[in-house]
């Protein structure tokens, strides 16, 4: 390139006046890559491989334990992870913007208590539900405004909210359990605790929301913009995307998912304490990441959230059925979390 006998201008004139070359010449490694079919691109996603892991564990467990493949066990597994799956759907959106929401567990406690108190006071289930979601939306709005407009770090803001929301839950509940839910108590407990066609209601909610998010990520402008913000917020801003407003809405969506999970969970338990959801934020973040969310932002899979949550519950259930001490559970969840991220790194390196 640096031929001392020629000036840069001369070199330039030659290159500039050459007929436009095709890109195939310029970068064969790029253009020789075949376009991938939908199936091939699915093979490259994290949720797919986690799903394979789930099947593998399932096959091993059905050989090890005769209880594993029973309807009862499946009912329990799916219901247990449905709450985390619902929350992970919202968390995935936040993580897609390169953010994090540590307040979802505390928010479950707060919105659960608010639901309980409103219904205990004799208001019906509709006001109870609306109060639950309004509480969640308010918390999400505060998180989002602090993060998007005041440019505070999501970790710090939501860590603060983790403490604040839990504390408010303690104050408004006067540190007492709520187990009487007024005139609609039956309906409330049926929504959270019963099943339709043998599938627990929270699982139906999770499946429905997963499809909604699948559509949102693939076909909605909002979804496209959230992914763009995660990829390059500066570019998104220059392209005219209302980055701040979208970011706030992402935190609101995440909080609403947590509120909905709380509403269902309180109905299932038939009672609520201000300790509801304690440390759940860690499980939810783990489920999102195992499901393919990248903390650097810009990556999101609707199916990743329930699949990640399913894997975590499956590990718990398998250890239980295999007779391994439950104290090992967190060890394996942590192991899978790190393995999942490691695998993604390796895949990315191969793909570049």
């Amino acid at each position, binding site marked *: *390139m640096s031929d001392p006998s020629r000036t*840069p*201008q001369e*070199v*330039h*004139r030659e*290159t*500039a*006046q*050459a007929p*436009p*070359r*095709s*890109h*195939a010449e*310029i*970068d064969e490694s*790029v*253009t020789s*890559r075949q*376009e991938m079919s939908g199936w091939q691109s699915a093979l490259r996603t994290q949720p797919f491989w986690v799903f394979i892991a789930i099947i593998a564990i399932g096959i091993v467990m059905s050989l090890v334990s005769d209880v594993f493949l029973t309807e009862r066990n499946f009912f329990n597994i799916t219901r247990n992870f449905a709450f985390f799956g619902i929350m992970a759907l919202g968390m995935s959106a936040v993580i897609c913007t390169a953010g994090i929401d540590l307040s979802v567990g505390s928010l479950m406690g707060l919105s659960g208590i608010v639901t309980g108190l409103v219904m205990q006071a004799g208001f019906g289930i509709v006001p109870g539900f609306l109060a639950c979601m309004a509480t969640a939306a308010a918390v999400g709005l505060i998180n989002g405004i602090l993060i998007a407009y005041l440019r505070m770090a999501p970790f710090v803001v939501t860590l603060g909210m983790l403490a604040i929301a839990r504390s408010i839950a303690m104050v408004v509940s006067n540190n007492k359990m709520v187990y009487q839910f007024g005139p609609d108590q039956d309906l409330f407990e049926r929504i959270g605790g019963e099943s339709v066609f043998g599938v627990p209601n929270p699982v139906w909610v999770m499946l429905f929301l997963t499809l909604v998010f699948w*559509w949102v990520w*693939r*076909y*909605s*402008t909002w979804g*496209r*913009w959230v*992914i*763009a913000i*995660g*990829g*390059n917020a*500066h*570019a*998104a801003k*220059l*392209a*005219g*995307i209302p980055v701040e407003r979208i970011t706030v809405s992402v935190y609101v969506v995440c909080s609403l998912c947590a509120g909905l999970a709380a509403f269902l969970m309180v109905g299932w338990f038939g009672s609520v304490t201000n300790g509801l959801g304690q440390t759940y934020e860690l499980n939810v973040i783990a489920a999102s990441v195992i499901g393919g969310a990248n903390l650097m932002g*810009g*990556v999101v899979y609707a199916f990743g959230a329930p699949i990640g949550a399913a894997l975590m519950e499956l590990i718990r259930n398998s250890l239980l059925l295999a007779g391994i001490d439950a104290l090992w559970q967190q060890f394996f969840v942590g192991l899978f979390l790190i393995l999942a991220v490691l695998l993604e790194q390796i895949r990315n390196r191969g793909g*570049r």
Partner: protein
Amino acid sequence: MALMELDAITKSFGAIHALQGVNLVVGEGEAVGLMGDNGAGKSTLMKIIAGNFPPTKGAIRIEGRKVEFSKPLDARDSGIEIVYQDLALCDNLTAGANVFLGRELKKRIGPFRYLDHATMFERAGALFSELKSETRPRDLVRQMSGGQRQAVAIARTRLSDPKLVLMDEPTAAISVRQVAEVLALIKRLKDTGHAVVLVSHRMPDVFEVCDRVAVLRRGIKVADKRIGDTSPEEITGLITGAIEAA
């Protein structure tokens, strides 16, 4: 009538005068090179035209009408598109998605509106072939070469059929052999009747594609000449201050 007129643009940041009374006229379909050393005020002038911030004094006129931009979208609405130095692309999206970023095409079924991927990919593909670039709309920007990224950034400016395309150092970050490709892209913009303002450090690029060249030094315009009436040596002298003004 001139397409764009900058009338005595002055910009001060506190005590620092970044620009002082800069006049610049860009005619329809004309390519004007804007040159100057680091800190000469090129970027400041670009940002004023692009609507990133307003001038302290002076006016911008588009086709004779005075305009005031408070944000980049205002400039776009007036027919000015900008190709940023860092290209402002989202790596994690496809070339097609980047072309339509912020102005996605939608289809409607009843009350539902959804992204029309097929049409967006098709139109992005058409734009790339108009630019004679083999960039493929479904490829991720992450996997692309510098020249292909540049093609995406330029294709994006053509969605609104702008009157003027501002390009900030389009050849600064790419390899020598891709420069030819980008210069060809700029010529094609010109051929299709777009005015171009090219900010560049690279003398050969400006002499290759521009009709006129304006030189800024310490916030003052020291020269504005037709390419045929000047030489790289003269422009270099003007940039460094060896030649006072021309």
